[in-house]
Each structure stands twice: as C-alpha cells, then as structure tokens.
C-alpha cells in the first residue's frame, strides 16, 4: 500500500460517520420530546471533544477545564442581557474570551509535571468560581445570571419551548467544530501534538517548538470549551456558578474515560452514554443513580472498553495478542 494512501485513508470520512451525523441532526425532529436532552448531550459532547484535544491528543491533563466552560457561559449570558441577544455574536464572544483566558493559563500549564498541572488547572477553576460568586453585581452571584433571553438564531429561528431549535443549534455547532478539529488532528499540526504527547524530548529534538505548540492548542481547546458553555447559557436562558463546578470538569473527564481519548468520537459517544445513563438511572433511582454509574465505570475499566463493546470477545480464550 502506498504511503500516501495509508495516511489519507485513515482520515477519510467513512460511511458510518455520515450516517451517524445525519441521524444526530435528524434526532430533534424525529424525537421531539427528547429535544432537551439531545441539546444537553450535544453541548457536553462539544465540551468533551475540547478536552480530548488537550488530554487525548496533546497529553495535557486538566481537572479544571470547566473554567473555560464557565467563562464562555457567563460571557454569552452577559452579552445577551446587556448588549445584544444575537446568539451567534454571543457564541463568538464566548470563544474569544475563553481563548484569551486559555492563552494566559497556558503559561502555567507548560511547566511542571502532570501532578502540578492537575493542581494548577483545578485551582484556576476554583478561583473563577469564587470570582463569579463575589462579583454578584455582575454575575448574580450564587443566584446566577437570570433572565437571559436570546434573539432568533440567524434572525429567523426562534428558540422554542420544546428545545428543538436549541438542539439543532447545538448539534450544528458541534458538527462544524468537529469537522474543523478532524482536519486539525489529521494535519501535520495534529501529528506534532501527538508527537509531543508521546515523547516530548524527541519532539523537541526534531525541531518542534513544544511550548508554543502546546500554548496554541490549549488556547484552541479553551475557546471551544467556552463555546460549549455559551451554548448552555443560551439554550437554557440561565448561567450559574455550577458552570465552574469541579463536577463539570470531573464529569467531562469521565466521558472521555467511557468513550476513549485520542479519537474525537470518544467525547461524543462518552457524552451520549454518560448523559443517557444519568437520565435513565436517575429516573429509576433518584437517590442512588451515582452508585450504578460508579459500578458501570468499575466494570468498564476492569473489562476494558474494547471487550465491553464486542460481546463476542467475552467468549474468546486468553488475553488479546501482544506483538513483540
């Protein structure tokens, strides 16, 4: 097989992907009663793929990615309340604000080791949480930012009570960002990210400017996380301190654990599985649903994602083959 074909073949859009996206985009129309949760899944999937970009592809661990999610959410909310209710303007502003914050934060994330990165990112999210709490004249404090009413999308599509417009809006943004990120991860730029992840010393030794490369991807990921936050505020009409909460940062990581890092669909599938499980389980047992989620995660980690998804392998003998 020629070298060129091998590389390009890996990055071509496959038939199942096309089908998947068509199905996703059609879902709010096909299942109108579930439009709200579809919207949530799309938003959280966008958040997850932004984390995958830095965690799965670049090897930067973060326990505070919600910092950017929250910044984007509040930025979009404040813009809508005080200046313009146009959703796309809000989305853009959220992306810019979070990206700037990401650019600044990237300086702290480049140094140290994984442990310090976890601490620093966590700390940053906690700081923003408190800032949002204290600046209650701006953010509404613990009560949150209320009454965020959005104008029609593209001047035409009103946000309806059923959440159909919202779901389609979020899904479209998810798709567009996904397509761009797909390009990015299959590009030379994306390959250099993976090289840095696998072996920073060697990446440096082949001429890759590691610090600036990581800073740029962190900025990009922050901007996308901000967009996800903006979508949440715009589609729910509400922004609260919860956007910065550690459980958001932790949940999004769990989604990547479920779906797998280093392939963009991991964030999407993980988000879908997590959200659906959360919804279904909490309907069955409102008090103990976290127990069942936890049990699922333990089983997932012990059995391995590959084997869980392939029931046939449950009956095969022995461990998977390792090559020498």
């Amino acid at each position, binding site marked *: 097989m020629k070298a060129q074909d*091998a590389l*390009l073949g890996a990055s071509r859009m496959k038939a199942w992907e096309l089908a998947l996206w068509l199905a996703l985009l059609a879902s709010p129309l096909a299942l109108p009663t579930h439009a709200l949760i579809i919207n949530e899944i799309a938003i959280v999937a966008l958040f997850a793929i932004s984390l995958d970009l830095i965690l799965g592809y670049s090897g930067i661990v973060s326990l505070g990615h919600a910092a950017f999610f929250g910044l984007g959410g509040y930025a979009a909310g404040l813009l809508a309340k005080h200046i313009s209710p146009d959703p796309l303007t809000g989305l853009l502003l959220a992306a810019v604000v979070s990206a700037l914050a990401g650019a600044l934060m990237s300086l702290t994330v480049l140094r140290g080791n994984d442990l310090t990165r976890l601490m620093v990112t966590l700390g940053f999210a906690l700081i923003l949480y408190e800032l949002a709490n204290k600046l209650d004249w701006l953010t509404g404090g613990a009560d949150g930012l209320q009454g965020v009413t959005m104008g029609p999308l593209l001047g035409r599509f009103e946000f309806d009570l059923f959440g159909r417009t919202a779901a389609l809006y979020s899904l479209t943004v998810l798709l567009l960002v996904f397509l761009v990120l797909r390009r990015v991860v299959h*590009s030379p*730029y994306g390959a250099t990210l993976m*090289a840095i992840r696998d072996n920073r*010393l060697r990446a440096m*030794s*082949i001429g890759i*400017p590691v610090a600036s490369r990581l800073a740029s991807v962190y900025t990009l990921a922050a901007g996308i996380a901000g967009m996800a936050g903006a979508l949440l505020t715009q589609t729910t009409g509400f922004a609260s301190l919860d956007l910065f909460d550690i459980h958001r940062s932790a949940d999004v990581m769990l989604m990547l654990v479920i779906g797998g890092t280093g392939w963009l669909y991991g964030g999407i599938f993980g988000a879908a599985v997590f959200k659906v499980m959360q919804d279904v389980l909490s309907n069955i047992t409102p008090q103990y649903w976290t127990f069942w989620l936890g049990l699922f995660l333990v089983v997932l980690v012990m059995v391995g994602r590959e084997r869980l998804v392939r029931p046939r392998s449950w009956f095969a003998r022995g461990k998977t083959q390792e*090559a020498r």
Partner: protein
Amino acid sequence: MSEREAQTTVLHAQQLVKRFGGITATDHVTLELKKGARHALIGPNGAGKTTLINLLTGVLPPTEGRIVLDGQDITDLPPHLRVQRGMVRTFQINQLFDSLSPLQTLALTVSRQQGLGARWWQKLGRNAQVMARCEQLLERFHLSEVMNQPTRVLPYGKRRLLEIAIALSCEPRVLLLDEPVAGVPAGEREELLQTVAALPADVSVLLIEHDMDLVFSFAKYMTVLVNGAVLTEGEPEAIANDERVKAVYLGHGTEATLEDGHG
C-alpha cells in the same frame, strides 16, 4: 597548517563544563567538528559522552563554556531551534513516538523539516514531496513492511532503525549519533553505518560507539573522553596504539576472550 587545521570548523565546543552538584560530568571539553567530518567520540562507560551530546544539543545548559555552530554562538539557543539550524542527534535509548506508526512519524518529521509543521488545515499525507521522501526513507531503513504498525509493537531492531531514520529525515548538516547500532542485528550494522557514511560529504558526523570494528572502519578522526575530560585525540591509527587508551578503554584483546573478526 595541517590538513585538518585547514578544514572549516562546523561545530565548536569551547571549554565546556557541566557540574551536577558535586560531580563534574564535563570537564573543560573542547571539541572541533570539521565540515564533512567522520569523527568518533570514544571512552569508557560513564565518561560523559552522552552528557556532551546533551550539552551540544541544548537539552542540558552548560555550567561554563560556549558552543559555536557555523560561526554563531548557540549556547543560549533552545534545542528545537538548534535542530532547525541543522544539528540533529539520535538517542542511545530509543526515543520514539509509541502510538504513531513509522510512516506517521517520518511524515510529521519531514513535514516539520520542510516548514509545514504548523499547518492545521492540510491533511498529513497530502503533500507529494513529503510522501516521496518518506517512502525513500522507509525503504532505506527496511521499514516499509511495518510502516503502518504503531511503533510500540515493533521489535527492538526495527525500533532502532526508526530511531536513526527519524534523525536522517531532519536533513541534518551536523549529525550526532549516540551508539546508533546498539541492539541492531549483526547483519544490519555495517549497512546502517554505510548509510551514515554515504551521507553527503558536507554533512558532519560525530559518532559515539563501542563496537571498535565499526568505529575504526568509519572514523577519520577520534576523540577519547575519560572521566568527563578529553584524554587525547587524533587519527584512528594513533589512537588504537595509544597505551593510555588501551589501558582505560580498548583493552589488550586477550586471546581467551576476544577473537579477531569480532562483529
């Protein structure tokens, strides 16, 4: 002026010192790498050869001394910029990208080298020139059959070949090889060094190696490093017969242990 003195110095390490707490790993080392050199750096284990390479490439900052590349002082230049000026090294212990395939690894390196490393909108594999060079390198280093397998599953010999291939794909002008044939099967060693020796005449090579047969067939000039300092330097003939070098490094080739035709 001797023949060597008349040649241009491409890389000049000037009185390099490296101290780690109480240990002096590099002790006022001065080394001149000439243009087109086939220069070997030998010495006992732990003499500081790899440390010297780390100083030259900027992975470690020197405690004292300066490094000059093509007449420019690069002592404070960050490692990736030294690579961009043509100074490339290989590692004694493979430093590879385990989750990427040899093809991906070489494609990204060649792309970077051709200035395309920051391109986020173009697919890797789109550029025909880059692909052609990759195919060439894969062929030369016998990696074509395994080019799509993730590096982590490759056997040690192939990994070692990839290690060297990566360095060559950076189109080096100064190449620093740290024990390149360690772990490479007997039949492929000579071939590997021939590939290196066959580099364009203006590529200057500094080789660290313990396989003396290979060193003596490759090198035109040698520097001997002992305990972090230069013991002596000269042409291979002179070094091979130097009693001090034999005492600390080469040994005397006693019949009970080594035979001729070693390797």
